[in-house]
């Protein structure tokens, strides 16, 4: 335990960095994923804006990028990060790449959860003369809110998981801390401390997600 005490300030910084990376990635990836997911959902045959070619293109893009293991994606997307955010290393680069990866993952989760909205409810909205944009905003999204919250909760946990490899491109956070001060220094207690913080974080996020979803489901 003694070896952990001097490292506590660093653990605090690492925790802050992980939160910083996860929150910003969730923000960018969440919005991007919502838009791409809505694109997948609405262009599908029989949906609000059926468009076979566009759906096929979006579908292929998501299918190509989503299965790439993040640690490889991080390395492969480095030139793109340099191009877009001007730097290929550090927390800024990892937030960019993590957001991008999250867009593809979240889009599928959004699409799946929107698919659970009963077509009859959409038909009812159409039958009273609601426009398609109004239907998306006032029917589709509110009706799917409960499952969407659970889906985003799942993603936050996945982002915390993915952010742990930030060290590969010089980023910080709990993953980097655990490897650098725990694993490489042969101090398992330090690693375990990082693990404990992550467990507490994940529990807290899941608790909050469940709470909000329960409110949305009203049960």
């Amino acid at each position, binding site marked *: 335990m003694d070896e952990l005490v001097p490292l506590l300030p660093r653990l605090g910084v690492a925790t802050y960095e992980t939160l910083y990376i996860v929150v910003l990635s969730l923000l960018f990836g969440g919005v991007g994923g919502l838009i791409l997911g809505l694109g997948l959902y609405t262009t599908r045959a029989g949906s609000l804006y059926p468009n076979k070619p566009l759906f096929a293109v979006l579908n292929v893009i998501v299918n190509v990028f989503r299965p790439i293991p993040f640690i490889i994606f991080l390395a492969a997307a480095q030139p793109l990060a340099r191009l877009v955010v001007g730097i290929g290393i550090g927390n800024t680069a990892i937030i960019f790449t993590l957001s991008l990866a999250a867009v593809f993952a979240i889009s599928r989760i959004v699409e799946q959860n929107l698919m659970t909205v009963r077509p009859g409810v959409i038909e009812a909205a159409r039958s*009273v*003369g609601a426009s398609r944009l109004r239907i998306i905003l006032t029917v589709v999204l509110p009706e799917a*809110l409960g499952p969407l919250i659970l889906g985003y909760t799942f993603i936050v946990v996945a982002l915390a998981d993915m952010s742990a490899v930030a060290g590969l491109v010089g980023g910080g956070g709990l993953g980097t801390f655990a490897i650098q001060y725990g694993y490489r220094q042969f101090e398992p207690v330090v690693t375990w401390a990082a693990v404990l913080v992550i467990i507490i974080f994940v529990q807290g996020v899941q608790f909050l997600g469940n709470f909000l979803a329960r409110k949305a489901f009203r049960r």
Partner: protein
Amino acid sequence: MPLVSLRDVRKSYPAASKNSEPVTAVAGVDLDIDAGDVFGIIGYSGAGKSTLVRLINALEPVTSGSVLIDGVDVSKLGEKELRKLRLGIGMIFQQFNLFDSKTVFNNVAYPLRVARTPKPELQRRVAELLKFVGLADKAGNYPEQLSGGQKQRVGIARALATSPRILLADEATSALDPETTHEVLSLLKRVNEEFGVTIIVITHEMDVIQTLANKVAVMDRGRVVEQGDVFEVFSRPREASSQRFVATVVRGVPSPAELSQLRERHPGRIVTLSFRDGSGSQGAVFLELAQAGIGFELVYGGINDIRGQAFGHLTLALTGADAAIDTVLARFAETIEVTESTSSDTKGADRG
């Protein structure tokens, strides 16, 4: 001019795969529905009636033909004009299709918000509608807290929110138990009588037509095979599919299976006499049979009432000389419908 006119309306869906044929849901339908009618469209699942009703408010576009509402062809309207048209056509559904994420109040308010109704007017209208359907105390509840019948009443209130002239009811009572069905049907009857709303009812249940409709069209494989006044179609169905529907609610016409059982149990000839309002009297029939020395036994029958008009069917087993029976039956056939079932023909030979 009829309120709703369908002229050679067709609807087909493209083939699901390269090897399959396109699916024709509606294969050339002509219908005229007058303002104030409760028009029933009955048919088995897959007869095309749910598709047909969606062509009226253009939730589905027609493949060919025209749907005229007040003389305006809806297939020629753009998306924006269609949305305006739909504000004047309410619709209720078998599965109610309420917005689960919205309260009863907000469900009913939804069409009013689409119509950009000012807030005070909106609140007054929703309160009025909830009172009409008897759910004034449920405004703040969510659909999941309601029973099936209550949900459909919310559906009706929502459909009526913008004071439409036409209400489309797509199997509106098919998910309800008989008692709740009765409740919802009497509510729809009030909608027709108190507000003068023209109602188009899609159903596979003949008793819905019997209680509610004044006109009926029978659909079979995408076509209307028979249409007319409900009493006419009920008391004298011409087409086989109409006859099968009528038999589900009209007591007194034995099914083919029942007929063959009756033949096994009873000697002699099995004859069904169909009475309609004012056509012949049952007493006279029995008297004549007795006078002709023909033995008779009442084996099946019933009298029905459709919107105040009565008709009935009596099935008799007749024993006696064939010639005497033929003479009497020929005389009956002058005023009432006589159907004799023979063992070779389970459907019965029409001698009237």
